[in-house]
């Protein structure tokens, strides 16, 4: 039985060309609203196909088209070109409005991930209401990460591929302003070393340490 199936598969598709493979990826991605992983695609393609190569080929083909091949996290999808959003008013999805708390929490998780509830609370200076993180989990923008190895082994939160897909990010590294925030020491959980603050003091020629540089 086993042999039968393999035989059949082989005889139907004799090592498809890169062109043929990229057609297959194109068809699968076009047909799906969700993004697909390399594995998703290769499982459906004939044996011996290399979806990664086919996708690179395809990505070049869709450069400057009305539809773009985008990569988010480990998966791929076609999305309409961002400059053509104005044509799609009818397709716009009514979004549930997120509370300010939820948006801030989301940003904190994205920029600090993996982040514990305690870290989120310490940054926001307020205890997180139960509903805030739940709402983000429900949207599937946030998921549980690994537990911290610190005492109490608290759970952590991370953003999901769906989050990246939603905001058109290839990875969390592409979060706006990430490197500036990191350079400014604002993604650390600890107060940056004193000397940095002293420098700020000098600049602000005041007795008190300054903040809000901009």
């Amino acid at each position, binding site marked *: *039985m*086993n042999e039968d*199936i393999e035989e059949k598969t082989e005889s139907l598709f004799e090592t498809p060309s890169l062109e043929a493979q990229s057609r297959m990826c194109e068809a699968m991605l*076009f*047909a*799906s*609203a*969700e993004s697909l992983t390399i594995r998703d695609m290769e499982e*459906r393609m004939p044996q011996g196909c290399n979806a990664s190569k086919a996708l690179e080929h395809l990505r070049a083909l869709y450069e400057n088209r009305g539809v*773009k091949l985008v990569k988010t996290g480990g998966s791929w999808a*076609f*999305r*309409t*070109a*961002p400059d053509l*959003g104005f044509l*799609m008013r009818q397709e*716009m*999805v009514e*979004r549930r*409005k*997120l509370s*300010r*708390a939820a*948006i*801030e929490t*989301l*940003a*904190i998780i*994205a920029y600090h991930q993996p982040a514990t509830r305690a870290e989120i609370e310490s*940054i*926001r*200076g*307020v*205890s997180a209401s139960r509903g805030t993180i739940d709402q983000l989990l429900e949207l599937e923008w946030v998921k549980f990460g690994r537990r911290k190895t610190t005492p109490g082994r608290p759970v952590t939160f991370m953003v999901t591929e769906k989050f990246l897909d*939603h*905001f*058109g*990010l290839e990875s969390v590294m592409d*979060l*706006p*302003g990430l490197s500036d*925030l990191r350079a*400014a020491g*604002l993604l650390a959980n600890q*107060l*940056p070393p*004193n000397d940095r*603050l002293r420098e700020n003091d000098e*600049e*602000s020629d*005041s*007795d*008190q*340490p*300054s*903040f*809000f*540089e*901009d």
Partner: protein
Amino acid sequence: MSEDEFDSGIDIANVSDRMSPDTLLVNIDGYEGPLDLLLVMARSQKVDLRKISILQLAMQYLSFIEQASALRIELAADYLVMAAWLAYLKSRLLLPPDPAHGEPDGEELAAHLAFQLKRLQAMRDAAAKLMARGQLGQDFFCRGIPEDVSRIRKVTYGASLLDLMQGYARIRTRDEFRPYVMSRDSVFTLEQALERMRRLIGFAGSWTDISSYLPDTSSSDGKRRRSATASTFAAALELVKEGNVEIRQKEAFAAIELRLKDQSLE
């Protein structure tokens, strides 16, 4: 998510409204905790945010708390905790540091608060930038007519030749135990032999070959014959033991003979 909606909480234009004591007190629920309140106050302090003084901020916060308590407005515990901490911070900042006490330097405490405020502001800015990005379903779109992948579950049954042979061997091995039960047909038991001999021995006044006591059918069936021979021999020994019969054999492999014991001789 519109940018307006997000910004409403920290819109500077709003701050003066929110800072007037009445609004502030009425809208206390509108603040996301003491740090948020401090941030709003800090932003209202000066146009040039660099000139913000933590000391001034602490005093401003404390006077707000005082006003609130004068109006008998119940404040959440964390606002009061912050007030207590800021009062302490204020004293540390106003009094010269006492090196004898191992207490933290007021400036360090202030720096930490400044860092917290700065970090919160940074996260708010980042959140605003994030929300200002193009979003799926708003600015770019996924496939409108997705085709579902139909998953066809196909079950194939497999078995190897080994499975087949093991299966067959299993049955035949099981069979092997059955003949022991079935072969009882060809067994001539000791009890049967005894009963037969007791009936026949009365006629044996003189020495008679033991084989003459075997059942008739035994000649046709080898297995039954073997069984009958063994049982008859054992039955004969049993009768000898009982003292009714004598048994003899002239030499090895010679005929075994039986005769009724002469009772008169005893």
